[in-house]
């Protein structure tokens, strides 16, 4: 297309079935479009996104020698890529396309206002044409992608994602803040609905992740700082002072000795006793500790907040191993990766804040996670389920489902379904009937949501084994101060009668929430969150592993409640998505970045701190300072462009003349915006 040629615009109105055509007059909008300046062709079609619809664009570009294409249809989120491709196929630069959103922003919201919606569609088309007249050719930039990835959080989700990436030949940093990988799944006894021993199916994965030549395990490590953009993330890790070194670290530090081999001699002499968080505080650990025997890596860690630096451990560890360093401090490490997967998991809500259920007030009210440890053969009681108050075996156990889930009351209540509590409560019911002959579980539920493969069958089985199901949400729990038995009050809504069940132990299926640290991680990586604080996927249906920040992906519960099968499936999806740009070796960036018009730039540098993404800097050029944009970092937000006092910043695809033309055309009365 020749320079300075008079613009020639084609307009295409989509019916979207009755989505648009059912609420406004498509033909009237088309006729109106024909009357607009520079519009040389206007057409309409049932489904513009279909092949015949797209062919209309391609043909018109040739037949009418178009310089710009406008489609009035659904939304750019859905079909901008489709129509851009069609525009390019017709021979134009793909950025010479503009969309008028007459469905999502018009027919759907003004469904019962035929006249009004038709007029609004005319406005929208007129505005789009005004911009289309000023569109110009743009070229996407491509940047190289580092052949490495990072996974943050090493629960089952993070481990799976790291293993997939590593098996695809990608060097992967697996960063875990705790001293061992494994996450919540290693705290579980058995897993529904197959009742596999959780640790048994998890340890092989932990070992694989620990031994994989492409996985660099960074345990007891946190993300300190993130810079860069897709393909080129520069991440600073804080390796927390562990107090011990393994063999490799000994060599790296140039020290004599074979390093920690996990013998545990140190812990046997350590005089300081603390609760073990892995056992939900129900078992002790020393100041120098491991969580459990299957930890990966098998290396002891010193809790420096508790350690009194008596040196006993160092003495017994001996000079041959020389593993302990009581003066160790945190160290920082910088790594460069192309993509990142977040898999930071979840916590239980502080269920004690629902005072009516008495958690932490009544000894025999426990949470599901505490139950997992108490029923687990390697747990604090060797797998004997006992009441915390007196060590007796409970014969009637109440399970309170939806403890804080599906609850709109704010504060501690969570409006969403935590998705695995029904199933693990069924599992818990089975476990007590199996381990304690004659024990009766009472499940207080609102609905049993057994939606997965073989889940409903599992429900059937537990019902058949003798579990009692009472349909009613628990209103309150009261304790008999002498027997420490608990009275669970609810309405049996199916009978329509209040019930008051005396139980020896009550297990709360507490709702889950994001980790306290999730907010900090999210902000560092520039990921959005949903209302409840879970990480927000790019699209709930069509892009459930991606985020709106290119190169950052999500796996597991950090994105929203899910059980192990769903976590693993999403992790595999995230790993696959993350490996695409890495294997391609380069990514294309939308050319929406800011440009410095150097003739106008005064080099004042005032824009530099305005950019939220750190994309701007001053450089020396021909004896003077001018601003420059790191295009790969710029997200095209326009903060700088709106700010620059000299008007030296030009926003590609959203230039001031383009925006002024849109405003003028909306007001129908051109105000004569500056060119």
């Amino acid at each position, binding site marked *: 297309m020749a320079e300075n040629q008079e613009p020639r615009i084609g307009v295409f109105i989509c019916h979207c079935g009755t989505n648009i055509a059912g609420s406004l007059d498509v033909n009237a909008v088309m006729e109106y479009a024909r009357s607009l300046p520079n519009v040389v062709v206007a057409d309409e079609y049932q489904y513009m996104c279909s092949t015949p619809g797209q062919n209309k664009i391609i043909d018109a570009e040739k037949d009418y020698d178009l310089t710009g294409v406008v489609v009035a249809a659904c939304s750019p989120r859905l079909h901008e890529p489709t129509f851009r491709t069609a525009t390019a196929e017709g021979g134009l630069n793909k950025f010479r396309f503009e969309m008028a959103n007459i469905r999502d922003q018009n027919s759907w919201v003004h469904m019962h206002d035929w006249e009004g919606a038709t007029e609004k569609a005319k406005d929208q088309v007129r505005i789009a044409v005004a911009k289309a007249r000023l569109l110009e050719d743009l070229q996407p930039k491509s940047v190289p992608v580092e052949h490495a990835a990072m996974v943050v959080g090493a629960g089952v989700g993070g481990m799976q994602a790291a293993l997939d990436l590593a098996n695809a030949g990608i060097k992967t940093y697996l960063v875990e803040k705790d001293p061992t990988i494994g996450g919540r799944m290693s705290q579980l006894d058995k897993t529904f609905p197959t009742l596999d021993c959780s640790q048994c199916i998890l340890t092989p994965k932990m070992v694989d992740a620990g031994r994989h030549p492409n996985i660099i395990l960074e345990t007891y490590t946190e993300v300190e700082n993130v810079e860069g953009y897709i393909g080129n993330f520069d991440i600073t890790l804080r390796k927390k002072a562990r107090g011990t070194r393994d063999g490799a670290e000994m060599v790296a530090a140039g020290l004599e000795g074979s390093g920690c081999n996990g013998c545990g001699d140190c812990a046997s002499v350590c005089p300081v006793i603390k609760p073990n968080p892995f056992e939900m505080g129900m078992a002790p650990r020393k100041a120098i500790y491991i969580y459990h025997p299957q930890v990966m890596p098998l290396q002891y860690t010193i809790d420096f907040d508790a350690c009194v630096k008596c040196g006993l451990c160092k003495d017994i560890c001996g000079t041959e191993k020389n593993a302990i360093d009581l003066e160790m401090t945190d160290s920082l490490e910088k790594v460069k990766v192309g993509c990142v997967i977040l898999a930071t998991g979840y916590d239980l809500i502080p269920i004690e804040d629902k005072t009516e259920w008495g958690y932490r007030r009544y000894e025999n009210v426990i949470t599901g996670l505490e139950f997992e440890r108490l029923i687990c053969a390697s747990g604090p009681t060797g797998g004997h389920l006992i009441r915390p108050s007196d060590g007796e075996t409970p014969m009637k156990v109440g399970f309170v489902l939806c403890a804080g889930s599906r609850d709109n009351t704010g504060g501690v209540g969570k409006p969403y379904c935590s998705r695995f509590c029904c199933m693990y409560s069924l599992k818990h019911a089975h476990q007590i009937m199996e381990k304690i002959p004659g024990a009766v579980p009472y499940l207080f539920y609102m609905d049993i949501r057994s939606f997965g493969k073989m889940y409903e069958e599992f429900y059937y089985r537990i019902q058949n084994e003798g579990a009692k199901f009472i349909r*009613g949400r628990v209103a309150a729990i009261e304790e008999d101060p002498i027997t420490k038995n608990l009275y669970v009050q609810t309405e049996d809504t199916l009978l329509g009668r209040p019930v008051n069940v005396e139980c020896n132990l009550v297990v709360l299926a507490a709702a889950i929430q994001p980790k306290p640290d999730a907010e900090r991680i999210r902000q560092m990586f520039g990921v959005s969150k949903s209302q409840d604080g879970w990480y927000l996927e790019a699209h709930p249906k069509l892009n459930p592993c991606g985020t709106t920040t290119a190169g950052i992906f999500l796996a597991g519960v950090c994105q929203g409640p899910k059980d192990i099968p769903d976590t693993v499936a999403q992790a595999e999806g995230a790993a696959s998505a993350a490996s695409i740009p890495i294997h391609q070796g380069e990514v294309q960036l939308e050319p929406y970045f800011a440009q410095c018009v150097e003739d106008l730039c005064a080099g004042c540098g005032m824009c530099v701190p305005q950019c939220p993404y750190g994309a701007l800097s001053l450089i020396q050029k021909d004896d003077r300072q001018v601003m420059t944009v790191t295009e790969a970092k710029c997200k095209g937000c326009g903060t700088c462009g709106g700010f620059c006092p000299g008007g030296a910043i030009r926003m590609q695809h959203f230039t001031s003349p383009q925006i002024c033309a849109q405003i003028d055309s909306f007001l129908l009365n051109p105000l004569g915006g500056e060119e």
Partner: protein
Amino acid sequence: MAVEKNYGNPELESRLKDTNYYTSDSNKDFSDRVRELSGTISHMCFQCGTCTGSCPSAPRSSYRIRKFMRRAVLGLEDEALTDPDLWLCTTCYSCSDRCPRDILPTDVIMAMRNLAFERDIVPRNFLKTVQLIYNTGHGVPNNDVNRAAREKLGLPRDPPTTHSYPEYIEGIQKIIDHYHLKENADRILAEGE
């Protein structure tokens, strides 16, 4: 509406009565009015039963607050307003404190009581309470047993209410008259004689 069979035998008729719920039993305006008067989202009730489970009235009576919530959802006006259980709520607000849907069931009951009153459906003892308040300023006026007990505790024989300040009864009466409460109570009681 229940289907009439008509066998010409009232006893058989009542035993074979159609107990289906038909959508025509519902009056949508009822749900709307309850919502409007109560200022709470009764139509969002998902029947978890927390309210009944919390209710001090429920274990000792046939009163199930959850059922009234259901009637509000479905617009079962006659069923709700003619049920004598409507008057068994103590307005303690336990249910409202705990409802996970953040509904105020107590206020739903209050709204239904107002609607029942519009149709003159009020238990006699409630109406008699109105009369007592009108005449004495008290729902439960002081009596000699009480007075003796108060004296024993070192309190004045009468509390510092209209019992001690009868001149304020007139004010209370003004308020009650404004709502035609006494007038209506008298009328309904008289009609029931």
